[in-house]
């Protein structure tokens, strides 16, 4: 794989020479064919992922902006209920928190994968 591979007798170190000599090329045995069959369409999955995430975020932002005062009141209402010990209503927030967590996790995963 070197541009200029060393010849065994040019290698001064006997360990290097032994290591070089112990390399035996592995036969393909259908490996390339298996890889080619497993290849996804190039580029499309990422576009789809970003598209889905982007549109979900956009839709969420639009809904939030359109309903901002009501959403604010809802949060305050939940806090009022929490202060009075009505936890059943407060638990209603759980799906929202789980949903936001999942979204955040997805974004972080995508970012890590891309890096």
């Amino acid at each position, binding site marked *: 794989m070197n541009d200029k591979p060393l010849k065994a007798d040019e290698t001064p170190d006997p360990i290097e020479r032994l290591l070089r000599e112990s*390399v035996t090329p592995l036969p393909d045995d259908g*490996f390339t064919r298996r890889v080619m069959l497993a290849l996804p369409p190039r*580029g499309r999955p990422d576009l789809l992922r970003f598209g889905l995430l982007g549109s979900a975020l956009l839709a969420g932002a639009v809904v939030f902006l359109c309903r901002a005062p009501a959403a604010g009141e809802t949060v305050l209402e939940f806090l009022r209920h929490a202060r009075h010990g009505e936890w059943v209503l407060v638990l209603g927030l759980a799906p929202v928190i789980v949903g936001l967590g999942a979204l955040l996790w997805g974004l972080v995963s995508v970012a890590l994968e891309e890096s």
Partner: protein
Amino acid sequence: MAFSDADLLARVLQSEDPNAFGELVRRYQSPVRAFLLRMTRGDAHQADDLAQETFVRAWRKLDQFRGTGRFSTWLFGIAINELRSRARRDRRLRFEAPEDLAADMDLAAERPNPGVRLDVNDALQRLTPAERAALVLCCQNGLTHEEAAQALNCPLGTVKTNVLRGKEKMRKWLQL
């Protein structure tokens, strides 16, 4: 006429030619699979599985290959990332966790039976995974120390130390 890696890469990127990528897979399957076979201590099934994931990931991320280094260095880097990723689930594959290094050092310190000369492959298996990776990349696959450091994502000094230590241990075990 044999195409260079750069020609094949250009064909994949410009015309999404899967045959050009197939040629790259054929060209590099042996060194990548052999490297992973060494790192998985001879588990051919696991090594081939990791090698397949390496090439699939390379296909997906080909546009991120800058072309400043050799394609093989970039490919080994992906293989090592796949190995690290798999090692999160399978601790036998870890090659950086201190407890595993310690276990490997114990194995490495173990003296072979007196009068018995190990063969190169046995000796390689007795090295710590980090030493083995450095030696296989540099001495068997012709990567420079800088390229190995890039592929392993570790400092250059660490690679040089691992190569030196690995050679020293092998020299002793092989009685050279």
